[in-house]
């Protein structure tokens, strides 16, 4: 981890090394680009990305100080916080584009099913990647927003990569899916019927870079330097979408052709407090948590 105080932004001197843990997914593209373009160095940081991680290991790793920052979806962070785990969201890692119909995650059904709106999934089987995270919340909310009853829907866990096959083989009636599988599913005849991310909140933060409360307290400059650098990276990304699309195939197995076609995640500067509040409400209603966490503790101010 970073063991030295960062130099003032832009100043010369030693760079503070921070380690980031994230699976090699699309949301890393701005980070890599920022690294290439010296944006982190400008903020006195040197980042090391550790892709040897997973949902199973990232929270304990961050809390134990083995890595400084990791990505986690907001619902997971809320649940962790409410169980007393000292996690602190720093800056969004991926966000909804905020445009229903053009988001990077959607509720899809088979084109042959005759289903045209989420509420028709009442009483049917719907796949989400994990039952306790934001995907489940998004799927439920898409149905609820359409006037359906999410309680009557049977949610099962199917990893995103298997969703296109599960939909087109008719193994499930609907599925929550994100890019690049949303494109793949559509190419195989699936149609999006709901856009749960926008139903959840207007400016939804889907996942965030988070650190431990201890780290944020001991090295506030590093945390904010990291946040500033990422924000700068996002600003660059918003202007240079093509570079992002070109970057993705270099660290994932996604082909350039697919990378050029998929919907990219939105890049936002703030972890949306309003969205977080809504997610807390959903999590309470869906029985994931019993006590609401203090959002001031959860989100780095």
């Amino acid at each position: 981890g970073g063991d030295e105080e960062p130099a003032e932004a832009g100043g010369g001197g030693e760079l503070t090394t921070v380690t980031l843990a994230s699976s090699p997914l699309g949301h890393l593209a701005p980070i890599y680009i920022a690294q290439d373009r010296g944006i982190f160095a400008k903020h006195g940081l040197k980042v090391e990305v550790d892709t040897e991680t997973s949902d199973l290991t990232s929270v304990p790793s961050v809390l134990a100080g083995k890595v400084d920052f990791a990505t986690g979806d907001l619902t997971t962070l809320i649940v962790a916080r409410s169980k007393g785990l000292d996690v602190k969201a720093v800056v969004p890692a991926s966000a909804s584009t905020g445009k229903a119909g053009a988001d990077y995650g959607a509720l899809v059904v088979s084109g042959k099913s005759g289903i045209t709106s989420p509420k028709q999934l009442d009483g049917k089987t719907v796949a989400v990647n994990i039952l306790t995270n934001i995907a489940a919340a998004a799927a439920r909310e898409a149905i609820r927003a359409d006037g359906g009853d999410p309680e009557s829907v049977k949610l099962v866990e199917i990893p995103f990569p298997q969703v296109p096959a599960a939909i087109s083989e008719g193994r499930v009636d609907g599925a929550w899916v994100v890019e690049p599988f949303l494109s793949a599913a559509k190419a195989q005849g699936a149609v999006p019927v709901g856009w749960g991310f926008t139903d959840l909140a207007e400016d939804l933060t889907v996942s965030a870079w988070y650190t431990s409360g201890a780290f944020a307290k001991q090295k506030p400059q590093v945390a904010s330097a990291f946040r500033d650098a990422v924000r700068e990276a996002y600003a660059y990304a918003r202007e240079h979408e093509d570079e992002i699309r070109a970057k993705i195939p270099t660290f994932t197995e996604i082909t350039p052709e697919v990378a050029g076609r998929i919907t990219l995640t939105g890049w936002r500067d703030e972890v949306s407090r309003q969205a977080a509040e809504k997610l807390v409400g959903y999590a309470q209603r869906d029985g994931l948590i019993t006590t609401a966490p203090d959002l001031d503790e959860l989100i780095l101010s």
Partner: protein
Amino acid sequence: MRAGGPLARGAAGAGLALGLPAALLALWWVASAGSTNIFLPPLRVIVEAFGRVWLSGTFADDVVPSLWRLGASYGAALVVGVVAGYAIGRWPVARALTSPLLAYFRVLPAPVMIPVLLVAVGIGDATKLIVIGLGALWPILLNTADGVRAVDEVQLETAAAFRLPVWTRHRLTLRAATPQIFAGARQALGISIIVMVVSEMLMSTDGLGFTVTQFQRSFAIPEMWSGVLLIGALGFALAKLFELVERRALRWHRGHTGREEPS
């Protein structure tokens, strides 16, 4: 030497069997009592969670489906493993033909097979049954094959000389191989419980593995640990059941190898 009735001996046996676990649990209790690490809660908290979680409806909702999956696939693995293992052990040609092929499939981990099975058989119990069954299959199959290969030739010659019907001869060969078949079945028992839990982590809506995973993902750490305890207890109970069957079936083997203790 032979003091005490069967009751006393039973008690002594139970003491021997439960002594070490009790000591270890006590050690855990003491060592963890002051733990503040959220991932390693005190055993006291875990035990509380155990009561809360498992001594309620969850037990029936989760343990029963798990047990049924376990039983069905273990049974199927037993049948398939013994039959296929017998064929492979008995006929060198069968062994030569299938050996690389089986080696190929043995290497594939469950997470690789599940996507294929998802497409092929869907998200119902069938996929889980197949995954558990495959996990349990290999130890049974390999042990059966090797056990059959190692059957004493004088026994085979005796059966052949008396021209015993083919099926009787197969049965005798299989019976002679039972000590190693039991070794395989015992291995498979442990493995199938693990694979049951792992397979329930995906595409599931109930079961022990599912529930433990949910606890884990929602950071309900004491509850998760209580699930681990339950899995251990389940394994223990099934192992004892297994031993009961084995003791009966392999008494001759204990006698034959000179291990039959006076009773």
